[in-house]
């Protein structure tokens, strides 16, 4: 059986086509084969973009729409996926996907472009406690992106630069707009770019950490979402949370789509 999970993020659309492998006698279902995964930039016309991303994923797996038993959608724009049978919240999908990748993980931190959130999960991958920040982008990837633009660096350079600094410069501005002017002030006071990059990523990590602390840090910590690719942020988050290790999945931006496809498969039984 093949199911699809579509994560309609604010910046990009992630599609996972999942094949359920039934092993006779096995106590649990296995999801061994990801038929396809594709990420496309989002579009203002979200329903058209969802159709396009889904069709491309099907084409790359050599499948047709009728081959897929169920399509579930998650993410901020999940209601725009007209062909999805059900919409799943980002918390439920993220918790499910993270638990599949790291069964021992009990604290899941999801930092995408628009929003960051912390979740506590049980052994079955159900979200038991969650907190997000529904108001501003200061604890999310778009904040880091805006600040890297102010420093005229790519996001990769930005993350790497932060790792070269050992200074702690507190950023007082809570808002992306005000923080940008604070970054400009730091540039004018000849603060090295590496130190500014670290200050920005420390600030994002501290905001994300505040959300995670609302739900409590317990067991193994798993970080999902696009910010996993930012090594500087991962280091800042470790420091802010006071943990030695954070588990980082291979395809971090696909974890919610994966969880969504798994829930779609479970609901077919």
């Amino acid at each position, binding site marked *: 059986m093949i199911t699809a999970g579509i994560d309609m993020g604010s910046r990009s659309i992630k599609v996972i086509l999942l094949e359920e492998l039934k092993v006779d006698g096995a106590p649990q279902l296995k999801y061994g084969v990801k038929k396809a995964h594709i990420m496309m930039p989002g579009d203002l016309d979200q329903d058209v973009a969802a159709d396009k991303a889904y069709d491309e994923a099907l084409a790359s797996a050599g499948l047709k729409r009728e081959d897929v038993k169920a399509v579930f959608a998650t993410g901020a724009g999940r209601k725009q996926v007209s062909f999805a049978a059900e919409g*799943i*919240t980002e*918390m*439920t999908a993220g918790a499910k996907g993270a638990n599949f990748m790291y069964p021992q993980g009990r604290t899941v931190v999801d930092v995408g472009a628009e929003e960051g959130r912390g979740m506590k999960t049980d052994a079955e991958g*159900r*979200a*038991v*406690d*969650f*907190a*997000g*920040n*529904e*108001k*501003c982008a200061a*604890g999310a990837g778009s904040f880091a992106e805006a600040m890297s633009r102010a420093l005229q660096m790519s996001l990769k350079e930005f993350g790497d630069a932060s790792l070269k600094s050992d200074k702690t410069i507190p950023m007082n501005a*809570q*808002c992306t707009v005000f923080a940008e002017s604070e970054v400009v002030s730091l540039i004018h006071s000849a603060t090295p770019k590496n130190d500014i990059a670290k200050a920005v990523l420390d600030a994002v990590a501290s*905001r994300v950490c*505040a*959300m995670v602390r*609302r*739900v409590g840090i317990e067991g193994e910590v798993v970080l999902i979402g696009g910010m996993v690719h930012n090594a500087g942020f991962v280091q800042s988050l470790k420091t802010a949370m006071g943990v030695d290790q954070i588990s980082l999945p291979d395809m971090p931006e696909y974890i919610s789509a994966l969880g969504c496809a798994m*829930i779609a498969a479970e609901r077919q039984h």
Partner: protein
Amino acid sequence: MIANYGYKDGSGEYYISIDTDKCIGCAAERACLTACPKQMFEIITDDYDDEVAWIKKPNCRTLSYDCADCKPSGGYTSLPCMTACTPGAIKHSW
């Protein structure tokens, strides 16, 4: 599940927590829906097919303003939503 709706900004941390385990099969007959003067609560079917209350999306971004009238400065001694929710599922962080 403890669902925290709200945000943290420069002025503070504004979250309304709903303990969905206490909210399922509400013993207060969904009194929160009428108790909130701003009608911020809504009943939804969550991802686990349970009927629970949540905070309407637009209100999640303006809690500090929306709830201000019900705080002590507005003349209340206890929050109407928390008082109405006899199972004790609703909590404010501020």
